[in-house]
């Protein structure tokens, strides 16, 4: 019993989670620098439960007029609990009539997807979505 309790205590310690959070923060900083994103202006669609973690469909839609004056310059996608957080970066131009990208991503386990959008005026936006993964994708 004592051994089991110790294992449960170990499982509750946040060291692993902290390492993951640092990796995520570094991955985001590598792409967009140190700016503080606003939590608005992005619709991130992902299934609440993914049957196959190897092919999880997501849709990112940023509220943007897509004009020369103001458009989405980049959309960055991160996975918070994969072995490495990087998923993809998309560099957009006003020729993309909508700031919308649909793709399929890998998720190794239950986790949050984080999306950061860089606007052409330099402002940042962020959104996240939790996905339960029934069968983890081979990452």
């Amino acid at each position, binding site marked *: 019993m004592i051994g089991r309790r110790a294992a449960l205590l170990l499982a509750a310690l946040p060291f692993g989670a902290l390492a993951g959070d640092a990796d995520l923060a570094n991955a985001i900083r590598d792409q967009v620098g140190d700016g503080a994103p606003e939590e608005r202006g992005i619709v991130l669609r992902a299934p609440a439960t993914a049957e196959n973690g190897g092919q999880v469909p997501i849709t990112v839609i940023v509220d943007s007029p897509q004009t020369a004056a103001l458009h989405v310059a980049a959309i960055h996608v991160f996975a918070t609990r994969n072995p*490495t957080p990087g998923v*993809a970066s998309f560099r957009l131009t006003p*020729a*993309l*009539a*909508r700031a919308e*990208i*649909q*793709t399929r991503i890998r998720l190794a386990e239950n986790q949050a997807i984080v999306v950061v959008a860089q606007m052409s005026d330099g402002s940042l936006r962020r959104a996240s979505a939790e996905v339960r993964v029934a069968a983890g994708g081979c990452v």
Partner: protein
Amino acid sequence: MNAPRIRAPRTARPGEIVEIRTLIEHPMETGLRHDSGRTVPRDLINRMILRVNGETVLSAEFRNGTSANPYHVFFLRIERTSELDFVWTNEAGRSARGNARIVVA
């Protein structure tokens, strides 16, 4: 690399917003996966570029979390007859191309 598949309309009205779908068959091996006790070597497409009439309108960088057989959907505004030229490149520098033409009558 296998030939990509591109779905785009053949014609559009001036200013019309059209949906473009792309898929390229590729295992997107991260180098982290094991099969029968061996590590499967890394083999990843890390770039996709779309040029329309010679101008880059969308580029993407793919990392470990992009699924095998990368699939993308996005929306272009078409003002005039457009030649779409896609290039996918892997980390070894090999590339695959795909084309589509959208005629504005």
